[in-house]
């Protein structure tokens, strides 16, 4: 079976020439469908750049990136837009909802760009909002909702078009601990349903929800660990393990 994501010798170099910054330095990696992967690293480690590459928001300086069997490394902006729309559901740290649209309209956005007819779009969006428990908040604007609710809208938006990859960049970074737990539970549920979830974070406790942890330091992958299911393991314990591995 083809891997969902296959990255080979990925390089991203800023300011080529004098003050070269190797944000990503020869990264190779494969992620299969249905995995729940956490990419961890401190700020400045290159994990955000890596997330931009995986999310097709940016193109690498060199190397190849196969997403769902398609080489996306050298595509044009518009082709990348189409790939993002079809293949990736984004969940951002800052929620990134459009303020003057209602929750429902926000969820509908990627479906509009996918050219899905209004009736079907509406049905998919309502179903998606229902899934994150916000059916009764559909007509609310982001400013009328709590942070946790806003992030749930963002998750509904990422899910609505059923993309193969869910890419979550510090999804709990702006949330209190109760909301964080809610959001992580939703991500775990999505994984259980068989979706591929890639989580970018600096927080070991958050990463502990994943089944595979990839640590990036200075643009290089320094570890790639699968977390074994050992009964009902405590998140704290796993986090400690991840912590220990990092040192």
């Amino acid at each position: 079976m083809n891997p969902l994501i296959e990255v080979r010798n990925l390089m991203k170099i800023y300011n080529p020439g004098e003050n070269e910054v190797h944000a990503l330095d020869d990264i190779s990696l494969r992620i299969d469908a249905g995995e729940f992967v956490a990419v961890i690293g401190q700020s400045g480690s290159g994990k955000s750049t890596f997330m931009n590459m995986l999310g097709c928001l940016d193109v690498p300086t060199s190397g190849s990136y196969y997403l769902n069997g398609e080489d996306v490394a050298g595509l044009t902006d518009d082709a990348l837009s189409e790939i993002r729309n079809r293949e990736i559901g984004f969940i951002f740290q800052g929620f990134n909802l459009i303020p003057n649209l209602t929750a429902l309209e926000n969820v509908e956005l990627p479906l509009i760009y996918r050219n899905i007819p209004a009736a079907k779009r509406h049905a998919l969006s309502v179903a998606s909002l229902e899934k994150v428990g916000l059916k009764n908040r559909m007509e609310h604007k982001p400013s009328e909702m709590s942070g946790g609710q806003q992030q749930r809208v963002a998750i509904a938006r990422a899910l609505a078009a059923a993309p193969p990859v869910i890419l979550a960049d510090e999804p709990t970074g702006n949330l209190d601990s109760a909301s964080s737990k809610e959001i992580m539970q939703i991500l775990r549920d999505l994984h259980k349903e068989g979706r591929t979830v890639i989580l970018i974070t600096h927080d070991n406790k958050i990463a502990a929800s994943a089944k595979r942890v990839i640590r990036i330091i200075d643009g290089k992958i320094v570890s790639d660990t699968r977390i074994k299911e050992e009964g009902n393991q405590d998140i704290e314990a796993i986090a400690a393990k991840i912590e220990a591995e990092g040192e």
Partner: protein
Amino acid sequence: MSQFFEYLKMAVSNIRANKMRSFLTMLGIIIGISSVILIMSLGNGARNIITEQMSGIASGQIALYTYDDTGSYEITKDDIAAIKEQVDGIRGINSYMSISGTTSTKKGEFQVQASGQMASYMIFSSTGILKGRYFNETEYLAGQPVCLIGERDAVRIFGSTDVVGMNLDVMLWEKEVTFTIIGVEQAEKESMFTFTYENSPIYIYFPLTVLEQVYGMEFETYYQIYLMAEDGADTGTITTQVVDLLERRHQCIGEDIYQYESFNDYMETVNTVLNVVTMLISLVAAISLIVGGIGVMNIMLVSVTERTREIGIRKALGAKTRSILLQFLSESAIITMIGGLIGIISGVAEAFLVAKIVAAVNPVFAFTPSVSVVTVVVTTVFSSAIGLFFGIYPARKAAKMSPIEALRRN
């Protein structure tokens, strides 16, 4: 193209989200468009009324004259007969001579302008007869002292318009002539070209040949004659033919002895001048339209900057360059089109308001503003073009943003 509808919806929702700003932006376009419509409508309306009133006076008239000091080029009776026979499209030929005199009636003493006319006077008279009749060819040839008088003048000197059959004694060149009134002409409709003043003379019209009878003058030649073209006849062609004929008959081909003034030519000149004036003022109004367009561009640029993050989100979610471009372009196009529509309606309303005020202030100048379809279509196209033109730069700026750059900004 179902997606285009979505972009329109996005644009509308954003315009509604910023009502005050959108309205103020629109205002520039509204003022520009309504000024253009206002001026064009007033200009056209004024031109129509001027044309109408002037045509009433002298449409189709051609004056033909010769500056001749030898006498050999003056237009003879034979010339007139030849013109009538050989040139098509002429209803009549006239020549006249005006002399002044006085008359006294029970109502007092009056100055008189007595105008000797040919029998074709009835064709040249623009008002029509109220009572009685015009003089005929027989009376003309016989030099009978009959006359026509205007409705108002009849009232002035007799206190009534029932004057047909009455006699009027007029002192002309120290001779008293007794005219029998055979007709009363209708008063001219009051227009911006009628000038009446107190003690203006009484006008009477009589057969030119009376002067031959009374003073022994001979009217064999005329230095000036008037031609009346048939309705719809080309006065230019008639003039050329008549001048050619006269030059041939007097052996002066190409010497420009015969000059002419055609009322229709004159009308064309007046029209051209009015058009140019209207166009010039419209141009000034159009400049305000461009200023309005720059306002639209300015606001769209602000909007693009403000909504950088939104653009980033949309792009991350799969919006293509074209999608963003269309969304922003729709916004400026809708603003200018709504502005244009309101501008057209208010421009027309303003034009009718101005016309009403003019009519109330001075009924003589009353006119109906004329809103031509062409004006409306042209301004609509122009305002949409402005929206697209001034919208394209901000929209392109938005569309070309990189999603990561845009998302990074707050």
